[in-house]
């Protein structure tokens, strides 16, 4: 039932609005709205009950194992939330003077420094609000760099076929053409194809390493040499940074620019789709172009640097300083982990992934790259099951929900058929992984004995499998008064 269905004219949470505000009689009548907006009219308790019950319809890290590949669904420490929510931090206006922000600025400056150390980059801007905005900023800096050198011929960005969809989309948003580079049979980038593709039109290449097929590209140094030799720059998509934290640094691999997803590697909450935070790090030559604002420290005071002091900056990505509250969470997390803890993240994310891959392989499942080490994630392909049993990766995914596990990422990357991209993260126990293997085995047995059962899954969730085609065809995107032809059943 929608909150709108619980609305009754005149009902209201009276404690929540000013008691007796003066009427705004000075507002010109012609500019006022003619009718009140059709917002729900409910009591405070109705709202609390409705949204509390809705929340219970979600899977989440706090309730389920969530091995969603490439998403790094690990524990979000509760302290990060409470400490970023201290009244002093929450109450601070974005345009308050630096004198009234030394506390938050100190945290942000230290976070910039830690991210530099972790990535091996020369400078960091915390401005981007999420990974895709970080990509945009990164590619925009590559563009600014070439333009500053008068190198206008570089109109192309290379992107491996395994890349996240945001990579080509971000490159296009920056005005580049995208050229796709195939992945070799062993999971590494096809070096020959890369050699063929680079040239004076190459502005740069966007890479994820470990890649989205779950392996570390062993030829990364050769790739860097090739692209750099052609005059291009290397962009590192930090989506998989969790796999290498404290082990190897993008800066050392030869990357010129990197974005990080703090909502992955630094465990800020995913929040049902956001917010994230996508800081960018750069090598020295790209430093002038970093997006604003940046935090500067002169040994005494911290202060924001904006457009006026950063004339070559690609500019501003949001009105204010970015997702500061999320950056504070990442800061708290980073300080709790510390030097030793960071290396352990990669250690145990990798251990869990390789253990789970080994168990699934010995249970008869097919790893997409069986001869490679898993990074923090790996791919199982259900091509054989699909062919022999007539059940596909989506059926497995939906049935896993009934077993109490969130499904892995399905049908991504696109180059592996019927794939499940599985990322257990370092915060899960061996028992949880063993339980997942047990469920996978049980589901395959069901697929043999009763394939229709899988096709009908899930059965135990608030809804059965949903009709996406209908959704896209009928486009019921907002409640309208009297539009309740589709209604919840009672009880």
């Amino acid at each position, binding site marked *: 039932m929608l909150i709108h269905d619980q609305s009754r004219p005149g009902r209201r949470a009276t404690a929540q609005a000013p008691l007796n505000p003066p009427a705004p009689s000075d507002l010109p009548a012609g500019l006022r709205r003619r009718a009140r907006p059709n917002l729900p009219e409910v009591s405070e308790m109705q709202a609390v009950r409705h949204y509390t019950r809705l929340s219970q319809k979600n899977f989440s890290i706090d309730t389920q194992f969530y091995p969603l590949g490439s998403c790094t669904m690990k524990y979000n420490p509760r302290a990060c939330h409470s400490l970023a929510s201290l009244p002093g931090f929450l109450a601070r206006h974005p345009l308050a003077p630096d004198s009234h922000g030394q506390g938050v600025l100190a945290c942000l400056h230290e976070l910039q420094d830690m991210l530099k150390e972790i990535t091996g980059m020369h400078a960091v801007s915390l401005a981007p609000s999420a990974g895709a905005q970080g990509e945009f900023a990164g590619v925009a800096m590559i563009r600014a760099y070439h333009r500053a050198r008068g190198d206008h011929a570089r109109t192309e960005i290379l992107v491996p076929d395994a890349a996240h*969809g945001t990579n080509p989309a971000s490159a296009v948003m920056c005005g580049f053409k995208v050229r796709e580079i195939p992945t070799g049979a062993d999971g590494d980038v096809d070096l020959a194809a890369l050699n063929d593709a680079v040239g004076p039109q190459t502005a740069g290449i966007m890479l994820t390493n470990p890649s989205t097929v779950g392996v570390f590209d062993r030829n990364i140094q050769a790739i860097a040499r090739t692209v750099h030799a052609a005059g291009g720059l290397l962009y590192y998509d930090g989506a998989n940074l969790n796999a290498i934290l404290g082990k190897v640094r993008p800066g050392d691999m030869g990357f010129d620019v990197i974005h990080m997803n703090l909502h992955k590697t630094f465990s800020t909450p995913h929040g049902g789709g956001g917010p994230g935070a996508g800081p960018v790090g750069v090598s020295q030559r790209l430093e002038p172009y970093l997006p604003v604002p940046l935090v500067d420290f002169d040994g005494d005071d911290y202060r924001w640097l904006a457009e006026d002091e950063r004339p070559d900056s690609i500019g501003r990505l949001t009105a204010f300083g970015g997702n500061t509250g999320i950056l504070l969470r990442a800061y708290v997390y980073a300080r709790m982990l510390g030097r030793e803890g960071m290396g352990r993240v990669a250690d145990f994310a990798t251990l869990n992934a*390789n253990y789970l891959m080994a168990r699934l392989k010995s249970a008869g499942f097919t790893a997409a790259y069986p001869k490679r080490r898993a990074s923090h994630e790996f791919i199982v392909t259900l091509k054989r099951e699909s062919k022999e049993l007539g059940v596909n990766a989506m059926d497995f995914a939906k049935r896993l929900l009934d077993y109490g596990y969130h499904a892995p990422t399905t049908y991504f990357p696109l180059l592996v058929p019927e794939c499940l991209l599985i990322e257990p993260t370092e915060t899960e126990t061996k028992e949880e992984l063993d339980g997942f293997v047990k469920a996978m085995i049980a589901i395959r047995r069901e697929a043999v004995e009763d394939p229709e059962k899988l096709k009908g899954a899930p059965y135990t969730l608030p809804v059965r499998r949903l009709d996406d085609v209908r959704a896209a065809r009928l486009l019921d995107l907002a409640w309208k008064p009297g539009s309740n032809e589709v209604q919840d059943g009672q009880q």
Partner: protein
Amino acid sequence: MPFVPHTDDDIAAMLATIGVDAIDDLFDEIPAELRIGELAAIPAGMAEMDIARLMHARAHADGQPVCFIGAGAYDHHIPAAVWQIAARGEFYSAYTPYQAEASQGTLQVLYEFQSMMTALTGLDVSNASLYDGASALAEAVLMAVRANRKTNSTKVLVPRALHPAYRRTVRGIVEAQGIALVEASFDHASGQTTVEQLEAIAGGDEFAAVIVNQPNFFGVLEAVDALTDWAHARNALVIAVVNPIALALLSPPGDWGCTGADIACGEAQPLGMPLSSGGPYAGFLCCKQEFVRQLPGRIAGRTLDLDGKPGFTLTLQAREQHIRRGKATSNICTNQGLLVTAATIHLAILGAEGLERVAAACHANTRRLAEMLCEIPGVAPLFDRPIFHEQALRLPATTADLLRSLAAHNVLGGFDLSLDYPELGQALLICATELRTEEEMRGYANKLARIVATRTQAKCPVEPKF
């Protein structure tokens, strides 16, 4: 090992299963010369109680001055229920609802948010959020250029009376795609963007879109109907930039002019999001039904399940980057879901009448504060038109200097207009939300009066030379 649950027994058993001797062996595909030792510059780990002490001290260091700055972020009351529910683990720690059946909570929230935003803006459809108001406007501009089938123009008319940070953000995001932003000034007496000015700057050119903001950055109410009709007459789409609290009282974009604005966007921060130094906030973006396939970002839709029971799912994903890659409507992936959850709960609790009361109280407080400040010699309204919720003032001394002195007394006196609008002289933009008390406003006025007096006196010995 914080947040790692592995025991020594676990590690031994897992390594044996994998068939390696040590965890380090799992990294043997990484070229040895790239491996690093330790992250020397990272400090040692801290216990929660120690980082808690540090963060309490730092939050305390930021103080809690009395805030009279608006300028795009507003200090509103947030019902205690909002974040107690939004921070529940099931909302807080869930991913994007790609597995719809396991995400009905988040998906229904998104659908309800979309419903509320369409009600507020008077438009047909809404997406499920963008990063903030400024980046939402950038996406609206890109969308309008794609969507406008009546012209091939890639030019967009931008009022100078739009938030300076919004103008800068839009420029940075859209110019790489060859879109030209043309700035239209405002009338210096009224503070309004007039049709005459638009006409003058536009000349005979075509525009893909015209941006209209209500109220504008100075708090001045624009003649939105006339601006909208002017734009439509020239085949330009109209992008409305609006404050959702103001929409409780002001005409919604869908009602502007003869046929309504085409796209509306803005900052959802006033709907339950703490100021928090600028984020996380959330941008909203609504449009007419005909443009839905150009609308970037996630959209939740209602559909049926295998049993014919209603449920919610992400829809129109074919526009998005994870499907359409380089041809997507935008690169946006992660949005501001948790903030949308807060905004939805906030709007459900306040309802239309509650929102109206908040808007009326803010408006009354700002007017009251302006009255008090205008009793100070040399302080006067900058413009002569009706305002809403923010007021621009002329000052008798350097704005930056006055603000610095006020800040030293723990009063954040407003936004210094003089930097972004040198043509206005020494000018200040103030805002007093419903949370500001009579006493706080009186305190501000008294302090400013004293500071202005000092400055004026200080001038005397120097000036009377003639």
